[in-house]
């Protein structure tokens, strides 16, 4: 069957599945809408968390990023998994025990302040909205590359699909759809990886294949060979190439870890399990399902880079342009690959030297998108990649949209503005707000603000510097006062935004950066994306200092902290407040 037809069938079959689940899992109460009735099995919640968490960036871009960053790409691997250790030990069990619906609600309770709750809502919306733009772009890109429909039309279809299951089912619908989406995306990711590992090393397990010898090269390991091929063409050695200074890699990893633990759409998944015990184990299951992709990604990255090098720089000398393989021609049409014959000899010179390098563009995303073609896998595998990329983008977008809409309908409306809102009206309002949030996200996806490129990294920095410290201090210190928490959140997110803006421009508008984006101006050589860790330290320091001035939190709040530190007496999420 023709590839395009096959892709249409696979993608629309996956959509039909999501719709079916949405109808089956529609929500009847606010408790079902916000926390899926707090009745999700911890293993299933782990799977849903994995899909919630792994975005279009994880699925499409990460392996390509690692392929070109080599060892430097480790910050993403460690940062985006290590955060779950923090989440499991420092946040999830206690937030579950407290048993409310949203992250700002917990902050409002613990810091006995509506202002604290509103500040948390603001931090949540800023972080989640920047993140959702990337997902909407991912949907549009996946449609335009695989189904050859317009980017705009693809985005409309994606908005419609999310709207159906998110508005109908709320957290309940999103949870079961995410479970299905996880299955689609992990299958789509693993199949090509297994085949490529088999072709290169003869070992079907990519994690072992990456540490094995190459077929036909009995005396050299794949990674050593890759190091050798890259250094021969003037590139940096794969296994030692660093991402900025050592301190920058350290801060970057730490920022991603605490940012991961502080992302509201991930935290709130732990409100959906029945008990504290389940919240602890569910974090482990989430990490199992995430590690299934994250330990394969470095193998995909290195092997794809190897395939690229052996194709473009064969042992027999430079490749004739006319003799380029079919996949090269296909991806040239999309503009993701670009060749420019600088010395006019009709051959491809691919080197690290900008002056003589003739591969003027190799988009990193190609490492995953074109992988099945480079490895000459059958068409159904390519069709799967399309469905997998869409599943990754849609599942994350749905989680983010729920975080945004619940913080508006539950925290702002029910919590602050209109406390008399009835259960039925709140459910209706949350559906309405969700619809609005989808339109805003769609609009931003169609007209990405100038800062779209930096958005996902920024979301981590913002969550790391505002939400994570507020939650952690609220649990591990009984004393932190409401004024202290508010001051901490505002100064943490403030200094992070300030640092990012001063290096990348105010609201990322080029030319408005007043310190320049150049490395010499970076504070201790820390890149703006890695600054969340510093923001978090500022947040902690300010909160402790202000508590010294205002005095500790009142006794009834300290009792509340004592109460959510122990699992007993939890029960289901409390709806009466």
């Amino acid at each position, binding site marked *: 069957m023709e590839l395009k037809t096959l892709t249409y069938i696979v993608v629309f079959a996956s959509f039909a599945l999501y719709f079916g689940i949405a109808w089956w899992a529609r929500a009847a109460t606010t408790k079902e809408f916000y926390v899926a009735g707090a009745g999700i099995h911890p293993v299933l919640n782990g799977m849903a968390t994995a899909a919630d968490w792994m975005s279009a960036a994880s699925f499409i871009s990460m392996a390509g990023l690692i392929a070109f960053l080599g060892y430097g790409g480790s910050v993403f*691997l460690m940062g985006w998994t*290590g955060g*779950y250790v923090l989440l499991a030990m420092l946040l999830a069990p206690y937030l579950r025990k407290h048993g409310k619906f949203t992250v700002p609600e917990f902050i409002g309770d613990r810091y006995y302040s509506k202002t604290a709750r509103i500040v948390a809502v603001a931090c949540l919306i800023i972080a989640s909205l920047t993140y959702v733009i990337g997902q909407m772009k991912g949907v549009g890109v996946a449609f335009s590359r695989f189904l050859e429909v317009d980017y705009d039309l693809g985005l409309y279809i994606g908005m419609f699909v999310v709207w159906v299951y998110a508005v109908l089912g709320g957290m309940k619908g999103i949870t079961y759809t995410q479970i299905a989406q996880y299955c689609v995306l992990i299958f789509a990711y693993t199949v090509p990886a297994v085949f490529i590992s088999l072709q290169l090393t003869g070992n079907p397990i990519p*994690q072992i294949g990456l*540490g094995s010898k190459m077929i036909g090269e009995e005396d050299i390991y794949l990674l050593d060979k890759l190091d050798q091929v890259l250094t021969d063409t003037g590139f940096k050695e794969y296994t*030692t190439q660093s991402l900025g200074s050592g301190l920058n890699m350290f801060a970057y990893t730490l920022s991603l870890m605490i940012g991961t633990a502080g992302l509201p759409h991930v935290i709130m998944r732990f409100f959906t399990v029945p008990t504290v015990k389940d919240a*602890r184990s569910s*974090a482990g299951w989430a990490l199992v399902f995430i590690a299934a992709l994250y330990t394969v990604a470095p193998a995909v990255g290195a092997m794809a880079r190897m395939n690229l090098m052996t194709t473009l720089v064969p042992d027999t000398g430079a490749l004739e342009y006319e003799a380029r393989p079919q996949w090269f021609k296909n991806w040239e049409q999309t503009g993701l690959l670009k060749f420019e014959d600088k010395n006019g000899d009709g051959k491809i010179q691919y080197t690290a030297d900008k002056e003589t390098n003739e591969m003027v563009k190799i988009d990193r995303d190609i490492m995953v998108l074109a992988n099945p073609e480079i490895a000459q896998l059958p068409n159904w595998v390519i069709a799967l990649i399309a469905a997998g990329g869409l599943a990754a983008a849609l599942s994350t977008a749905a989680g983010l949209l729920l975080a945004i809409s619940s913080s508006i309908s539950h925290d702002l409306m029910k919590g602050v503005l209109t406390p008399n809102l009835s259960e039925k009206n709140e459910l209706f309002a949350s559906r309405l707000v969700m619809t609005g949030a989808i339109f805003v996200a769609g609009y931003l996806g169609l007209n990405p603000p100038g800062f779209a490129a930096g958005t996902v990294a920024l979301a981590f920095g913002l969550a790391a510097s505002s939400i994570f410290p507020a939650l952690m201090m609220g649990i591990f210190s009984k004393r932190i006062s409401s004024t202290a928490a508010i001051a901490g959140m505002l100064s943490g997110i403030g200094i992070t935004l300030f640092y990012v803006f001063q290096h990348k421009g105010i609201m990322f508008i080029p030319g408005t950066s007043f310190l320049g984006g150049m490395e010499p101006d970076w504070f201790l050589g820390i890149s703006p994306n890695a600054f969340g860790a510093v923001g978090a330290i500022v947040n902690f320091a300010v909160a402790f200092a202000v508590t010294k001035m205002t005095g500790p939190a009142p006794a009834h709040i300290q009792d509340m902290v004592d109460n959510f530190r122990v*699992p007993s007496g939890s029960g289901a999420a409390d709806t009466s407040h």
Partner: protein
Amino acid sequence: MKADNSEYWKANLRLVYFCLTVWFIVSFGCGLLLVDVLNNFSLGGYKLGFWFAQQGSIYVFLFLVFFYAFRMNQLDKKFGVQE
């Protein structure tokens, strides 16, 4: 608050300190700070420091989260605070 709950909390904190120390050693220690030293050794075709950064730390994270959940369930029972 019952008096024995503060002992429960202290035991929990000790466990968290232990787990986070291991967490720090495998990722920031083996994967970043000591990577050049560890790269002198190898694990199959992997340089050891590189392996910790791209594979090993993730496996240890996994083990830690389940170990913590398992130990906490024991502590819950020991102090009689289970659900």
